[in-house]
């Protein structure tokens, strides 16, 4: 139990807690996990989950089951940037297969893997609700639409690893 939620993370979680009734701290589990995940390398180890449970006065299992249920929480190490490529119907019709193939070749990894330098994790996304701009992907918190290999090159270059 080496991990302690930092002061700034606590303050951020506290701002979320203000939104819910005082006896409903559990409502802040999702935002709290997101905050702790983003500040600690993009993934959640058991000690992070335990710390969130402690902070919100919840049984550990209440946090574990949430962390393992939602797709935006990672329970294993990931790269600095997470690339979520949508391959659902509208993106598939717009050629997401080419986009996935290009990214896999360009990064030298398969779907679900992380580059050796720890820069990128490539993930398959279910519908991102960006079908009007298919094929689409999300990197960290940003959406990118109407993708082409050229566009992907310039997006990756802009991220500087």
């Amino acid at each position: 139990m080496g991990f302690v939620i930092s002061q700034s993370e606590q303050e951020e979680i506290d701002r979320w807690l203000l939104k819910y009734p005082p006896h409903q701290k559990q409502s802040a589990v999702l935002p709290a996990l997101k905050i702790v995940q983003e500040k600690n390398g993009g993934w959640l180890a058991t000690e992070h989950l335990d710390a969130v449970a402690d902070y919100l006065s919840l049984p550990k299992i209440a946090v574990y089951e949430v962390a393992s249920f939602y797709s935006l929480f990672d329970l294993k190490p990931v790269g600095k940037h997470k690339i979520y490529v949508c391959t659902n119907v509208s993106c598939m019709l717009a050629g997401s297969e080419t986009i996935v193939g290009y990214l896999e070749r360009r990064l030298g990894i398969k779907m679900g893997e992380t580059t050796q330098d720890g820069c990128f994790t490539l993930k398959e996304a279910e519908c991102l609700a960006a079908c009007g701009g298919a094929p689409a992907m999300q990197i960290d918190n940003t959406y990118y639409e109407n993708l082409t290999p050229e566009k992907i090159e310039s997006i990756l270059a802009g991220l500087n690893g």
Partner: protein
Amino acid sequence: MDNIVCFRTHHLNPPWSLQSYLKVGGYSAWKRILVDKVPRQTILASIKASALRGRGGAGFPTGVKWGFIKAELPGQKYVVCNSDEGEPGTFKDREILLMNPHQVIEGMCIAAYVMSATVGYNYIRGEFWEPYQRFEAALEEAKKEGLLGNNIFGSGFDFHLHTHLGAGAYICGEETALIESLEGKKGFPRYKPPFPATYGLYGKPTTVNNTETFACVPVILEKGAEWFLKLGVPGNGGTKIFSISGHVNKPGNYEAPLGISFQELLKKAGGVRQGHALKAVIPGGSSVPVLPAEVASTLNMDYESLAKAGSLLGAGSIIVMDETTCMVKVLARIAHFYTQESCGQCTPCREGAGWLWRIVHRITQGQGSLKDIELLEDVANKIMGRTICALGDAAAMPVLSFIQHFREEFVYYVQHGKSVVYSQRTSRSRKFLDYSGEVGGFISFG
């Protein structure tokens, strides 16, 4: 004439600011209600008369839903906005949140007033970081303007509106799963009854409406129920945001009257991409039955017309497919989606969705048999109607409709080990269909 309800700020710069919203008449209904102390029943009657129906997919009359809440009873009540948009093919709520967030806020304020709810939440899917920030900024503007908070405009009415962020789960678009998620739990849909109107968020009476539904409300009260009703066709008031994607020249969101013909809507989206012919249409998001071109071409886009044609309007999410589309492969992708997104609570859905996916996948790998087609229908029929929420039906309906309308493509695939569409280039690898590892993982999760 088209951008008159949810997209009415689109022509302004920037469309999302408070100033732009005020310019088109925004918050005038809210102010009038508070200053004139308009009786709740009067507002409720307007919403009912407007024939506004839930824009999230079910099409349930909004006024009737609001009427389920007993506003006069003491105790905390909640209004919740469902911005957990995730139905494949649907991308309208994202644009509403980005382009016209204040109209959603005003709609929620009015709903809160009608149901005497002093607290509201907008549940925004976790991926929508940009719309979340845009909505938060709009909330700040509205608070500064005194449109939210305590004793708004000296009316004695309090309303506090907050955002909540999801974390990636399609099931949370189901209203009781959304409530569970808002309580900080896994998104497991609840048994109904009790319905949220009696036992919702934190066990209190709660109304959950879709983002677009809330955004329709202020305009109804500004311009009148009759005006809104007449935009559409009987029983289908208003315009609707149609999300059009797939093989069209100009994919995007188009606001158009309910009851507009499919042909006219397709024209707005630039028609089927150059040199190609319409083959099939999914008219309401991936959960609804697919329709072949000859049926879709004669459709009017309203709830009843689509039901009569054997499908559903759903969220108005139109996926257009041309003659190059392999229906077996599209179904495989759809089946994979429901396998991934089944929450795992009900056995028929958790196991059945996996079966459906594995069987279609087997066919796309050239390892199917004719019996598999019957097996697909059998499994789908055994999921239908046997689950707590509609995700089970949503997994089954595409399977049944794809086979009903395109059976010969499935038969061809089984007999030749390749698609009738791609028959010239079978060797092409299709990596996106290769998920066998993940599916095994999913089953052990359940």
